């Protein structure tokens, strides 16, 4: 029983991973869509019966696709595959008519079980069968890393969602290679604001090193305490900000390390808000780039937000690239 399948995800790494995990011969036709708009166009052209759908995408996200499918009564089964593992996200997508939810990072055996359960597969495939590799252009390591960070970000958000009992809107992280000068200029500008505090946690191991920086609004400490069901803070309320930041950065780093198969030491988180222009290294055009990953979690219901900056040192890029190229194979 072969099906026509659409895989909709903004990450090529994730699309290829899923395509590889499908049982041999499962897909009669296999279409890739980079965003919700492309997926809907394929569905309207009756090009797919089964849609694997990511949630966080630019240009129509997964929720909007589900709403449109329902509104236009498009015929297809939807399996959501997402790094956003918050219970509320799952409730929302099931409410919008999705058949099932699969968490990222996805494993082939889980996918096969799921397909079997919904009668899309008559028997479990022999997983020792080498699956033909998906031909296609090489995926850059930053693209692969982006997907890994998506997943780690989803895991960290889930922890925060549980701690605060809220739904967190997941952003799309921005990865860029840039100079230390640029990065530190940005960090110093983060420290300018009196009302914000910056918390830093260093990490090192498996030849990677860097820092996770988290910026929170000091004025939000009361709000966060109430969400955690605690009494008003003693002192300046910084403890709760530190607790939240440490939880987020640890979860993010653990999630990333786990996917990479790396072990990392985490340093003690500290307030890092005394940085100023003096700590910005001079601009040097010949300097090796560092890697910065930037995103903002928002909690729409509480008007809370939290900025994250994950930085990798110059020397980390080669080991990261080597590791990711092994993961893609």
């Amino acid at each position, binding site marked *: 029983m072969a099906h026509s399948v659409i895989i909709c995800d903004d990450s090529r790494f994730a699309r290829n991973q899923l395509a590889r995990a499908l049982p041999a011969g499962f897909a009669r036709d296999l279409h890739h869509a980079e965003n919700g708009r492309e997926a809907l166009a394929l569905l309207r052209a009756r090009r797919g019966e089964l849609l694997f759908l990511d949630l966080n995408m630019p240009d129509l996200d997964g929720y909007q696709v589900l709403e449109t499918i329902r509104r236009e009564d498009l015929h297809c089964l939807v399996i959501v595959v997402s790094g956003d593992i918050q219970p509320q996200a799952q409730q929302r997508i099931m409410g919008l008519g999705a058949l099932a939810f699969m968490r990222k990072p996805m494993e082939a055996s889980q996918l096969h079980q799921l397909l079997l359960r919904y009668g899309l597969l008559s028997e479990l495939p022999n997983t020792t069968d080498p699956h033909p590799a998906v031909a296609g252009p090489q995926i850059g390591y930053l693209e692969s890393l982006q997907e890994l960070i998506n997943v780690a970000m989803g895991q960290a958000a889930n922890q925060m969602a549980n701690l605060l009992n809220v739904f967190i809107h997941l952003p799309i992280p921005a990865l860029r290679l840039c100079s230390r000068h640029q990065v*530190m200029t940005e960090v110093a500008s983060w420290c300018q604001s009196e009302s914000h505090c910056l918390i830093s946690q*260093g990490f*090192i191991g498996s030849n990677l090193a*860097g*820092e996770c920086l988290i910026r929170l609004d000091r004025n939000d400490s009361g709000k966060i305490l109430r969400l955690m069901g605690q009494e008003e803070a003693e002192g300046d309320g910084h403890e709760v900000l530190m607790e939240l930041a440490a939880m987020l950065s640890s979860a993010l780093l653990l999630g990333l390390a786990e996917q990479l198969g790396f*072990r990392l030491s985490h340093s*003690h988180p500290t307030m890092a808000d005394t940085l100023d222009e003096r700590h910005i290294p001079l601009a040097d055009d010949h300097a090796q780039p560092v890697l910065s990953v930037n995103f903002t979690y928002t909690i729409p219901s509480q008007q809370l937000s939290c900025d994250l900056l994950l930085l990798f040192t110059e020397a980390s890029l080669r080991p990261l690239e080597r590791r990711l190229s092994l993961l893609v194979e």
Partner: protein
Amino acid sequence: MSQIALDEFHWILDVLQSIDVGLVVVDRQFNIQLWNGFMENHSGIGFSKLQGQGLFHRFPALPESWLRRKVETVLALNSPTFTSWEQRPRLFNFISSKPFTGRSELMYQNITILPLTSRNGTTDHACIILYDVTDAAMGKLGLQEANQQLKVLSVTDRLTGLFNRGHWEECLRQEFNRCQRHAHSSTLMMFDIDFFKKINDGYGHLAGDAVLRRVSKTLMQVLRSTDVAGRYGGEEFGILLLDVDEPGAMYVAERLRIAMAEQIVEFDQHHICFSISVGIARLEPQHATASDWIAAADAALYHAKRNGRNCCVLASRLPGLLSEAKPLPAQVDHA
């Protein structure tokens, strides 16, 4: 081993592995017997690749003779030893655990070396414990630096970089006392910028500031390192010339006056020229206090002004009381 003991052993190993402190165990031959997760992650080398190998062979950058001596003492005396980052910043050249926001590129470490006694009672292993104290070290170094800056700020005039009035007067008092004790003499020079108000009024206060800065720069070039220069007031400066007599001071003053008159300050497309008037007073027995000394130099300066400015006047050459000086023609307002 019982199940409970095994569980406990497992937890303890887990703690040793993940604690945010470096642990290294070596035997008497300095072969590595334990290398915990902290050491693995910071060195980038796993224990499996180091087990049983010579510490100095694998880490040639270590201060071998120092560490040998320390460990041998620990084993011989069966007592621990401690080294602080203040004596030795680090044992292993690890990068800082905050490679971006940290103030230091390398980690500061406190080191403890403990003797380990085996089951048969002999002390034949040493445990090197490595604490990451970069934050504390940076805090302390930062504080020292800030104190040093405060000290500089508290004695310095912001605009000119010369001593401020308070500190300069203190130096003058000390010199006054020193001269009293040792019966020798120094000379004091007070000068101010002629028609400084006109510069401020004509070109603005920023132009005035530029002139003040140029005066201080020229001053630094002309003076010797033993001379003590300070900004006494708005455009008035005081210089203490140690162990210099009047002719010597006159020579310095003239050089200074000429150097100032040659300056051209470019400001906002203007070329500003200026001159100075100088009063010079040697410390005399009749000066009962440092203030008397200043008053004498000030009187000479006043006389230099009345003499037509851009000149140097010695207090000892003043014609007696100031009232005897030839008065300048009074400006009469015929309004």
